[in-house]
């Protein structure tokens, strides 16, 4: 792999950029791999990357039915934070956040991780209590957060309206080390690194069946033919239950559309991520200048990857109220992604009833921020059969009733 650097760019500029090589190969599938990962989104690619990097397992295929990074990795609002309430969540999200800090250097691909800070507004007494509780929990979990006053909120976000007549801002939970990253670059950077380790990323290849022999996985049947493997990782977000069905087990999962939108680009006016859960909206400003806005999930299950309009209305109402200047901007584009939501709204990273088959799904509305941590933990689980980060996220918790419920900390999609 030719390294990217300012010198490489300069060198290529002199020869009209004719010397750049492919970021990742586009091979035909081999007949057998040690490991097949289904799903070349952020989580799948990160899983493959850490299998190679941490465990030296590189005879790996990552199979993708569309284009890599084309699911929720390329549709989210790019927020990265780890101020979760429950210990297992805080552990994996904080692991992810810390890996984001060095991801550009690790991958030699600028993913533009920008620790610009994440502010979660408290607009009711109940929210104040919830966020104070989170701040206490975070302190013991090794996650740096702080409950800040309305005055500090105004300093951090000058465009905010603290004194909305309906829900005045009473304070906020502030995670200074949270922020954003360039979502596509995360997928592309991992893909380039995986390809460089000799892994095969096979796009436009849909899995149509999972072959199980004597309770163990033998391979998958795809639109590009059968491919055998010793271990199988299912990392397909919104379609996880569909794939699990092919392997013969069920997942406690619902798939719903989550909405997002951007405004037209404007000059910088907001440097941090603000989430307002009482009124249901959140916003940050991309490096291009667009206000990146997210709202909630539709109240019905579907797979269409397009959203309805009523959530957009609800979200924009909230933002017009919280940041009145937004009213003078325009919506450029809205889109939807299909998120997989479990009963407790926490992910599943787990062994499955099928031998040597592992599943990583259920990230719901919080998948992007967890990508490196999720891949790290899933790789450890697949390579060694055990990972402390995944322990509590086992599929068995739904039988045991040992749920990891974050709803007290995040009442809204995030």
């Amino acid at each position, binding site marked *: 792999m030719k390294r990217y650097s*300012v010198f490489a760019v300069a060198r290529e*500029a002199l020869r009209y950029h*004719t010397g750049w090589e*492919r970021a990742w190969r586009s091979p035909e599938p081999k007949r057998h791999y040690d490991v097949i990962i289904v799903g070349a989104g952020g989580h799948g690619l990160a899983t493959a990357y850490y299998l190679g990097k941490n465990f030296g397992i590189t005879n790996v295929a990552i199979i993708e039915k569309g284009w*890599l990074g*084309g699911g929720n990795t390329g549709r989210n609002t790019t927020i990265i934070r780890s101020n979760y309430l429950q*210990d*297992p969540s805080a*552990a994996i999200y904080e692991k992810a956040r810390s890996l984001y800090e060095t991801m*550009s250097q690790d991958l*030699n*691909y*600028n993913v533009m991780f*920008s620790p610009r800070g994440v502010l979660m507004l408290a607009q*009711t007494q109940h929210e*104040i209590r919830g966020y104070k509780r989170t701040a*206490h929990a975070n*302190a013991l979990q*090794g996650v740096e957060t702080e*409950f800040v006053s309305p005055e500090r909120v105004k300093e951090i976000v000058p*465009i905010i309206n603290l004194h909305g007549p*309906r*829900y005045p801002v009473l304070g906020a939970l502030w995670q200074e080390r949270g922020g954003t990253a*360039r979502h*596509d670059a995360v997928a*592309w950077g991992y893909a380039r690194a995986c390809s460089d380790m000799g892994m095969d990323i096979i*796009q436009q290849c849909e899995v149509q069946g999972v072959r199980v022999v004597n309770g163990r996985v033998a391979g998958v049947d795809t639109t590009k033919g059968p491919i055998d493997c010793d271990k199988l990782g299912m990392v397909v977000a919104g379609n996880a239950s569909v794939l699990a069905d092919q392997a013969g087990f069920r997942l406690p999962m619902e798939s719903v559309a989550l909405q997002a939108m951007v*405004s*037209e*680009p*404007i*000059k*910088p*006016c907001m440097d941090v991520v603000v989430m307002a859960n009482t*009124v249901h909206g959140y916003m940050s400003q991309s490096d*291009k200048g667009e206000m990146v806005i997210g709202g909630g999930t539709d109240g019905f299950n579907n797979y*269409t990857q*397009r959203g309805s*309009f009523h959530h957009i*209305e609800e979200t924009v*109402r909230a933002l*017009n*109220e919280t940041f*009145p200047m*937004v009213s*003078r*901007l*325009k919506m*450029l584009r*809205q*889109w939807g992604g299909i998120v997989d939501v479990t009963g407790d709204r926490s992910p599943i990273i787990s062994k499955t009833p099928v031998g040597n088959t592992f599943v990583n799904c259920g990230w719901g509305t919080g998948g992007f921020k967890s990508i490196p941590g999720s891949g790290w933990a899933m790789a450890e689980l697949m390579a060694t059969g055990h990972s*402390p980060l995944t322990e509590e996220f086992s599929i068995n*918790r739904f*039988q*045991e*009733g*040992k*749920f990891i*419920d974050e709803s*007290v900390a995040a009442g809204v999609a995030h």
Partner: protein
Amino acid sequence: MSTRLAKQGRLIDRNKQIEFTFNGKRMTGYAGDTLASALLANDQMMVGRSFKYHRPRGLVAAGSEEPNALMQLGSGDRYEPNQRATTTELFSGLSAKSQNHWPNLEFDVLAINNKLGRFLTAGFYYKMFMYPRAAWKHVYEPIIRASAGLGKAPDKETKDADTYEHFYFFADVVVVGGGVAGLQAAKAAAASGAKVLVLEQNAYWGGRAPVDGGTIDGEAPEAWIEKTRAELAAMDNVTLRDRCMASGVYDHGYVLGYERLTDHAPGQGGPRHRLWRIRAKQIVTATGAIERPLSFAGNDVPGVMLAASMRDYVVNWGVTPGRKVVVATNNDDAYRTALVLHEAGCDVVRILDARNNGGGDLMEEARQKGIRVECGRAIAKVSGGKRVKKVAICAQNGTGGAQEEIEADAVAMSGGWSPVVHLWSHCGGKLNWDDAQAHFRPDAARPPLGDNGKGFVVAAGSADGEMALGPVLVNASAAGSKAAEDAGFPAKTVAAAAGVDSVEAPMEAVWLMPAQADIGLRMKSWLDYQNDVKVSDVQLAAREGYESVEHTKRYTTLGMATDQGKLSNINGLAILADSLNSEIPQVGTTTFRPPYHPISMGVIGGEARGDIFQPVRKTPMYEWNDTNGADWEPVGHWRRPFAYVNKGESVHDAVNREVKNTRENLGLLDASTLGKLVVKGPDAGRFLDMMYTNMMSTLKIGKCRYGLMCSENGFLMDDGVVARIDEDTWLCHTTTGGAESIHGHMEEWLQTEWWDWKVYVANVTEQFAQIAVVGPNARKVLEKLNTAAGGGMDLSKEALPFMEWRDGKIGGYDARAYRISFSGELSYEIAVPASQGLAFWNAIMEAGKEFGVMPYGTETLHILRAEKGFIMIGDETDGTVIPQDLNLQWALSKKKEDYLGKRAHLRSHMADPDRWKLVGLETVDGSVLPDGAYALGEGINANGQKNVIGRVTSTYFSATLDRGIAMGLVKHGPDRMGEVITFPGTDGKTYEAKIVDPVFYDKDGEKQNV
């Protein structure tokens, strides 16, 4: 130079001059001008700077597809960035500023990026700026952010001075577009009797037809347009709206209309924009087509314009973008522009037709007029910087070796036409590639499908790929009839108007000009003007493996600008397909997403702002509370008094006063917000036995029972007192926040699981005002009221014992009194009809003076219940807590076969002896424990987190006990009474608290059972 012509200008009124400013410079235009045409009339061709390279940019188009002419308009609370000059109607006093430059439009420091263009190719930022690590946040990113963005953000304290509104409409057929196709389709649809709505984005009707010429039914198109519009306007079943753009199509025939009511006359009253939320049975998209640019070097120099747009400026607004114009084309339509310019007295110095054989009749006509036409020829390069000066000409089939350079001040280009398929595609309509016309057109066999599995969008006219006037009208008429028929109206054949137009020779696809342009030229051939994406960028993306069209888009930012690729997408796709040795249809398009054109956030929010952002639910005592010191707290959609603060008193003092007074004298709580659900029917008892963990079917009429509700997973979700009203009727109290969700929860079970049970649930929360009369003097004040009224309900301990209710009169008011207590005091919760609530409240306040009556708020409510060890949903529960954790096993019926949560309670973790259990907590020093603090355990867990053994769920200063009290969940808590545990605060302090019984006050209940 660009200038106003002496003649032409069908849309302007030369008798009405309008003054406006651009970058502070005074200019004049005419009524009917757009800002764009007025700028051209004032020789202002350069209108902005590009996003990345800050290159000088001029007007390219005349409509909503314009990528360059984005302006900052207005000032103060009416300031708005990124407004398109081409869709801005001129008004007196308009003040426009160009964007994205410093210090000014003519001289922009960041134009240095243009010089560095060779380094700043597609995706360059992914390959650098990685070291040192901290520099991204502190150096590189701030610079990138400052140079990106377009218009300036509105001021941070901006409060939009305009208002917006929402509007609802139902139509059988919505026709999008008021051009000749739209009008013809509407006519056909309306003839069947269908209710038709026609939306036109411009302030005028007829679209391009009057500019393009030809005849309809033997007349000039304008005559037919006006006649047809008037016919439609006169029909009862037709609604016409101009300045109203259909911006999105959603599932189930939901269409968004974006009506710009006062943008052309700001501040003159009424809402600025109106959002039409339309349900349509069928939608006809008569949205026309958009011309494509040609990709040649320097195709972004101000003065290079789309040929048809140039024609629009001449015919519609009587302005010409140049005096010496070169036309470059691959189709016949651009000849019309040459002819119009010639007619207007401009010098058409050359027509370069990339086709070896040139065009048809129109070419001959141009030649006859003395215009020099060269076939098989192309533009090698346009030069001039801020304005076209020279055009180098070469062979189309070559690498761009210039054979001649001629002087010109404008270039009209045409690369063919692309149907506007956005609305067709928003909801899943599929496209076919038409090789002959080199464009994607709707595939009628694969339309977006409605809930009946049938198509609900029909494309019409040029939006359906018909490019000549005659076929457009025939196609549109058929589309209108089909839509009406599919909407359920019997087909009625309407003869299409007869359109006659020049016969055109076939176009030939030209994706690069010249066809084998060398890299030097390709690096100057723009695809996406606003985002500065060039032919070489797309080729680089393909070379680096970003082969999916979505990868190319994202890597190069092609089509991601505010015009969403209206001009660039097809040209970019073609370059990508060529780079991949593939075909355009195999490469496919990116996804079309709403809105078609950006719409204001103001209109999306509509009326909901400020005081009516979310309507406040008000109890009958709301105004009284407000004028009597209520410190409001939002709870759900309600507001409740947190405390009633007297003058000169702090909130904390007020709470302490309220607590003591209620314990010692008499307190009144406005409890009206408490949810009240009537559950009624022969199966109501059986149903409630499933919903609650307790047995409710055996509750005796006249009695109350405290009930718990668990989720399917066994977690405690709500609590409240249930009263049995009669044989078939129960009244269930819920928490304030839970009323709607519990109602929904009940309905969900009734509708999905027990649909055959005879039960109705009605939410009667707002039908009653409910007042908690609390304290040792509670009975006295009520009896005084009865005495004054000459009698009433017997409120004695014997007649109305604890946990019972009675209907009757209190103080002359119709009342239902419940002997229940959430405070541990003697307490009556009295419900009266909402209309009598305030009067009843006032009556108690008046009568209660001698008993020391005071109102109390939610904080006192919380403290009183905490002193008694009563749990609060949302404090002691958070979705992870089960009744067993809260010592509420007694409320879990053992007699019932089933109830929601029962099976879940059998799961292993639910019986785990290590679950945290409810206890009371007392700080060693009497201080108040911090809210949400965790109790520290020993060591760390496998993930390096400190182990914890419990947490604070509620914590207050108790005025009654004059010390801090708290409740918490602690591992093995009830077995550890008296033990002291440690709570680290986030304030740097560590708090020590003793585990105690959670009932701090009146453990034996002597005060409430009197």
